[in-house]
């Protein structure tokens, strides 16, 4: 699955993303029931969200506001007139057996997402964003299935992209930026584990240069960005292979409309159901609701009140802190992380180093734990202190890595204290002692010395390494470099 087929290079993928986002309003979209995850089943319900006879929907104005905020944040057109429609389908998680959604007149039209992909800024077009209510959740037990209506009626915005995404990396960058924007304007928790951010994708492939779109399939159930990337990679490969291994079959017979789900165990897309014909949802205007009519003032006020958005923050980081675009994007993609970074900057001015420690060193240490720098309890002040200790020469870079390991093991302890408590972390500044080690290494490695003198720099690095070993990493590499060079130069050949 991972081998590269040269023929595949002549193909491109066409990807569209549909992202469902649960808004973090206090109550649901059409009922006063609390909009809250994780409570006892069927406790956050009213007659409206359980589809009792005679119940009527009443629109949550806060949800409208949040939808408009998002529309403004992606520079889309906010529809001054939009309306709701009934979308009919039968399923136990649907309390009325019709969803209230926006079919042909959504509240937000168009929009742009600018995200960094492999170091470059790329622009992606959004087709529309609309409001709709969520369904309940089916829970399966051994002898029966139960329905929990806590989630039924929760407010969603559905963000539909144009089919303008061409690689899995682009898809991830696009989705991450949307998530970041949602967090920055505080309209959603964006918690993929809890289902407050859900991504479905439509994928098709075609030979490069071909203008028409070929048949696409839908992939559901990818509940992380990395799963999405894997699923897309896998599916794109599968589709191209299908075309390549069936050269005599008519093109529209090779890939047929279907829905797949991502299987994280098998690490491949698995067919859920074929879609022979399009579903007939019998959309018609919702007679129990009046249209949403917005004024220019309402929209402008929201636009003016938007906070700094991820792209603006990213550009600020590049401008003010001299970070690379990639570093700035990685930091600002997660609002909490960017906030953490700026908090640390209050006591440490080395932005580049801080960024490296957050994005590389600690990120690497956190990777398999499922935690983040925030959840594990390491304070921004402490990362700042660590960087300061290095910059002040109080510890070497190498020692700092051990200190970082200690901070991971005992989160919340000030690194200055960790250093003070551990004699091994005290830097070796005794030049005489280092000179002693230098002499020893030179004596033990005559061949390497000769190699270095003959012009092989690698030999020198080896010698430095040997000295650092003897110093148990506590000496400043710079000092060791100087002393070693000096000693070798002074040596008689």
């Amino acid at each position: 699955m991972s081998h590269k087929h040269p023929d595949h290079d002549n193909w491109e993928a066409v990807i569209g993303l549909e992202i469902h986002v649960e808004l973090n309003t206090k109550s649901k979209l059409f009922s006063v029931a609390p909009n809250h995850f994780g409570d006892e089943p069927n406790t956050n319900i009213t007659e409206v969200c359980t589809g009792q006879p005679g119940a009527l929907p009443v629109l949550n104005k806060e949800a409208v506001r949040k939808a408009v905020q998002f529309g403004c944040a992606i520079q889309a057109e906010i529809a001054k007139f939009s309306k709701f429609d009934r979308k009919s389908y039968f399923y136990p998680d649907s309390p009325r057996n019709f969803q209230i959604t926006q079919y042909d007149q959504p509240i937000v039209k168009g929009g742009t997402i600018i995200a960094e992909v492999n170091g470059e800024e790329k622009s992606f077009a959004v087709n529309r964003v609309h409001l709709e209510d969520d369904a309940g959740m089916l829970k399966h037990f051994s002898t029966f299935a139960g329905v929990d209506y806590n989630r039924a009626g929760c407010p969603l915005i559905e963000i539909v992209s144009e089919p303008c995404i061409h690689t899995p990396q682009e898809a991830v960058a696009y989705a991450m930026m949307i998530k970041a924007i949602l967090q920055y304007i505080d309209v959603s928790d964006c918690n993929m584990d809890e289902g407050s951010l859900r991504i479905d994708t439509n994928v098709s492939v075609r030979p490069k240069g071909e203008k028409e779109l070929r048949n696409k399939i839908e992939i559901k159930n990818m509940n992380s960005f990395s799963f999405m990337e894997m699923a897309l990679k896998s599916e794109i490969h599968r589709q191209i292979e299908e075309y390549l291994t069936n050269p005599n079959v008519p093109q529209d017979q090779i890939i047929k409309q279907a829905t797949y789900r991502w299987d994280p165990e098998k690490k491949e897309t698995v067919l859920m159901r074929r879609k022979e014909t399009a579903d007939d949802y019998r959309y018609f205007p919702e007679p129990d609701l009046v249209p949403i009519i917005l004024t220019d003032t309402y929209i402008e006020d929201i636009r003016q009140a938007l906070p700094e958005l991820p792209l603006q923050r990213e550009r600020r980081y590049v401008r003010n802190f001299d970070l690379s675009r990639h570093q700035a994007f990685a930091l600002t993609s997660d609002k909490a992380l960017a906030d953490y970074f700026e908090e640390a900057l209050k006591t440490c001015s080395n932005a580049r180093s801080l960024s490296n420690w957050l994005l590389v060193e600690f990120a690497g240490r956190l990777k398999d734990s499922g935690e983040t720098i925030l959840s594990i309890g390491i304070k921004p002040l402490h990362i700042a202190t660590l960087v300061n200790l290095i910059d002040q020469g109080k510890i070497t870079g190498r020692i700092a890595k051990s200190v970082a390991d200690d901070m991971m093991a005992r989160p919340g302890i000030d690194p200055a204290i960790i250093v003070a408590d551990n004699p091994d972390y005290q830097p070796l500044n005794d030049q005489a002692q280092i000179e002693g080690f230098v002499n020893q290494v030179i004596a033990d490695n005559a061949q390497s010395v000769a190699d270095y003198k003959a012009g092989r720099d690698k030999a020198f690095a080896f010698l430095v390494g040997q000295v650092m070993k003897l110093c148990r990493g506590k000496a400043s590499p710079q000092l060791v470099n100087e002393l070693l060079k000096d000693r070798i130069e002074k040596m008689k050949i």
Partner: protein
Amino acid sequence: MYNQSAIEIRDQFVRGERTAVSIARYYLDRIAKFENQIGSFLKVYEDKALYQAEQLDKKRAANQSLGKLAGIPIAVKDNILVKGEIATCASKFLTNYRAPYQATVVDLLLAEDAIIIGKTNMDEFAMGSSTENSALQKTHNPWNLKCTPGGSSGGSAAAVAARLCPLALGSDTGGSVRLPGAFCGVVGFKPTYGRVSRYGLVAYGSSLDQIGPLSVYTADTALMMEVIGRNCTRDSTSIPEGPEEYLSQFKNSIQGMKIGVPWQFLDNLADESRHAFEQAIESMKQQGAQIVEVDLSILKYAIAVYYILATAEASTNLARFDGIRYGQRSPRAKTLEEVYDFSKEDGFGAEVKRRIMLGTFVLSAGYQDAYYRKAQKVRTLMLRSYKEAFSKCDLIATPVSPFAAFEMGSIQDPVQMYLQDIYTVGVNLAGLPAVSIPNSLTKSGMPLGLQLIGPQKEDRRVLNVAHFLEKILPFHNATPKFVNEEVKL
């Protein structure tokens, strides 16, 4: 007492001349005597009503302020939810459905100290024009027990006609308050769409439904409207106005009023009905009204448009009855598909199934443009037609139905049944206020009604003229013979 108005009864209670318990007891006794022949109630709240009456008597004794409906026993159509009580909508599907919340109108009634005396029979899910579609029982017209009381609010109309209670609530989607009102010789009023809250009314046609009162006297309907005609924050289609005053605004003249009559549209009226209608118009003329011809020929499409739009909305409104959350679930169902299929198969009657299928069809891919969308466009033309007509007149007058009440079982063809609504459905499509008042009696002694229709929000004008005409029309508060007996207290 049974020929007294609700207002008179309330006043007697408030003045201390009668106790609430005696009033309730009186009507409960009438129910006990006549109900088994009429069948208007699905449930009589005997204990509850007497309890409410006791509380009310205590309130009065303690000199607490009393509501506008104090002591009046009121019947409520069984598609309007009373919290904690079964609401069947006259369907097998909901014989076990206990309402977990209450309709706004019921809250309003209780806040004004009304006594809810019971729930009345209806066509199943309000689909029908004769109450024959009730899955639970038959209701007989007090004027002739072989005849239907009209529908779908037949139970409420029959109860009022038989003086089993002075006031009742019904619901009107295509004529379901006005038609039974006409068939039973009582006043039936449909408010402007949005005037009365639909919260707690089991929905049939969402853009057409309105709850409306039925009473012997127009003044009682006006009183009821003063209580229930107001904005409700739980109904997004509720107009942001009200309550209005009606009783204090009654005028004693229709001098100079312009009454529009769509003569063209009435071409096919049977002789007796035509004669009765023309007499009513003549009376109005004599009282100083000006009769103006108006063009409502577009209404020849009204039945078609109504049965497309109402059934479309109904097909989605009734989708929630699926055997999953409440109501009856078919015991023979083993899979999810079967729960859906068998529960609906067993729970719904033929007419309900018919309308759900029709509504689903007109919304389905490939047909929606030709049926649903086309019907919406024609609806707009009807709105314009009415508006144009009202630029020439203050109210429009028509008969309520082509005939008086027909014998039960005499109309088997569903489409022929639909044609009963020919004069009433246009009003719902345009959201207009309209009333049916008893006009005269046929040779065989059956009531014929007169319909008055006003522009949107002119409920007051409609009630005003109805109140005036009540005094001059030949019907003159006639009472069905067999209920014309006093029941000893």
